[in-house]
């Protein structure tokens, strides 16, 4: 068999092998995505969460929300650059895990931090910039999770579905800002997340600008030829 995916972007990997591999691979990836949660659970059970367990849980679930958002956003660039087109089959799972950890993060906040005090929560969302932006990032993920099924892709139509799911860009940006605004002085971790996100979004901008440029070039190449006889 030819080595799948080490060709250029134009080369299609051999489909039959990959499809069968994906079938076995998916449950493995699914379980791997649950490892952060399992680790938290195990640490909580064994009393290894340290002096401030709720803070650890809040930070871990927040971290993993951001990480899964970035992993989800990395799928397209990696697929295109390496030709591993089958990666697309994992994108929905990663996106849903971002939402899953986001839900846990949000639950930690409303339960362990605010103890379901709605008044306090509303006050927070309205008054604290970092909560407002974090909450926004989370809310933006809800329609994406709801419309993640194949049925919804069909119902919305590919174009509209894709447009809707571009909300993930704003959710990820909100997530990084949320982190940035909550640290006291040491911004190196939010900066790292921000840098990765900038690369992932930058890739998309470059691709988009490149396609625009190409379109313009073909126009401008035609342009002068028309102008010469006039001059």
């Amino acid at each position: 068999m030819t080595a799948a995916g080490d060709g250029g972007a134009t080369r299609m990997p051999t489909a039959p092998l990959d499809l069968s591999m994906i079938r076995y691979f998916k449950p493995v990836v699914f379980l791997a995505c649950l490892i952060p949660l399992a680790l938290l659970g195990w640490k909580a059970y064994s009393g290894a969460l340290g002096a401030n367990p709720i803070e650890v849980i809040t930070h871990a679930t927040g971290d993993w929300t951001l990480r899964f958002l970035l992993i989800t956003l990395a799928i397209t660039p990696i697929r295109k650059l390496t030709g591993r087109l089958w990666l697309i089959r994992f994108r929905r799972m990663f996106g849903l895990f971002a939402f899953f950890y986001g839900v846990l993060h949000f639950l930690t906040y409303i339960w362990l931090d605010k103890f379901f005090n709605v008044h306090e929560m509303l006050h927070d969302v309205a008054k604290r910039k970092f909560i407002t932006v974090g909450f926004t990032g989370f809310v933006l993920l809800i329609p994406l999770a709801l419309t993640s099924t194949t049925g919804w892709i069909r119902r919305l139509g590919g174009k509209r579905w894709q447009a809707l799911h571009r909300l993930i860009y704003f959710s990820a940006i909100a997530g990084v800002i949320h982190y940035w605004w909550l640290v006291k002085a040491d911004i190196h971790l939010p900066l790292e997340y921000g840098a990765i996100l900038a690369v992932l979004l930058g890739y998309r901008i470059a691709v988009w600008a490149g396609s625009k440029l190409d379109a313009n070039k073909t126009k401008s190449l035609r342009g002068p030829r028309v102008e010469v006889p006039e001059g």
Partner: protein
Amino acid sequence: MLIKQSSDIPSSEITPKRLYLNRRKFLAGAALAGAAAAVGLRSGELASPSMAVQANAKIDGIKKSSFSTNEAITPYKDVTNYNNYYEFSTDKYEPAGLAKDFKTRPWTVTIDGAVEKKQVLDVDTIIKMAAPEERIYRHRCVEGWSIVVPWAGFSLSELINKAKPTGKAKFVEFTTIEDPKQMPGQRGRVLDWPYVEGLRMDEAMHPLALLCFGMYGQALPNQDGAPLRIVVPWKYGFKSAKAIVRIRFTDSQPRNTWNQMAPNEYGFYSNVNPNVDHPRWSQAKERRLGEFLKRPTLMFNGYDQVASLYSGMDLKKNF
């Protein structure tokens, strides 16, 4: 092609640095003990000055204090493994390990500024200036968590009285050691090192303000500010400077590091105040380490006896 270099010493044979240093300490100790035996000293006499230095060294003759709270004391393991000590790391779980080999002796404290006589005092001289007391204080971090710690020390006023500040002294400034070789956090510019804090003179003279060199009946662990720190229980934790090398009396309000870092978030006074929120989070409640539900934060962290220091002041403005 990958070339694997063969090492003369397998990595399993290389002694970790910490063990290596400990072995050196052990050897030095053994050498001292040998020398002591030769000169006929009792080992206790020889060991006393340097042993008092070690964390876990018991502080003798600690008196109880009426300033102590009878609230449940936070476990030692939490207070010594959850530290905001940016000189070592911004990660609260790291200073315990990173401060392990921090040298707290020899240690001197410079006392200068508006004083009758500028002087450089050995920390062990300062520690003996007054009888040690146990002060069980609530300690409230600006981040919204709190602990109850049995500190050991005596009122800061004892030292200030001996330092004989002049009439010009209106404020006291405390400077933390700057030593990036020992303090990895200082190799970056997270804060403007060295860490500086300050108190108004009347605040510093208040009997609750503690000059502290121990906790849980023992010498201060390095990650908790050894060998000498202050504890100002009615203010947010960052006002209580650690590892102090300089105490300076001034006629104008000294800068304080966090205020310099974010003036709109951290004031000079930084009194614990449930009614004045941090711009980014509420200060109305706090999480006492070890408790599940949050508890309400008390004005002046429950130390109402300091209220008179601020009578007539707008504490929303002077946050």
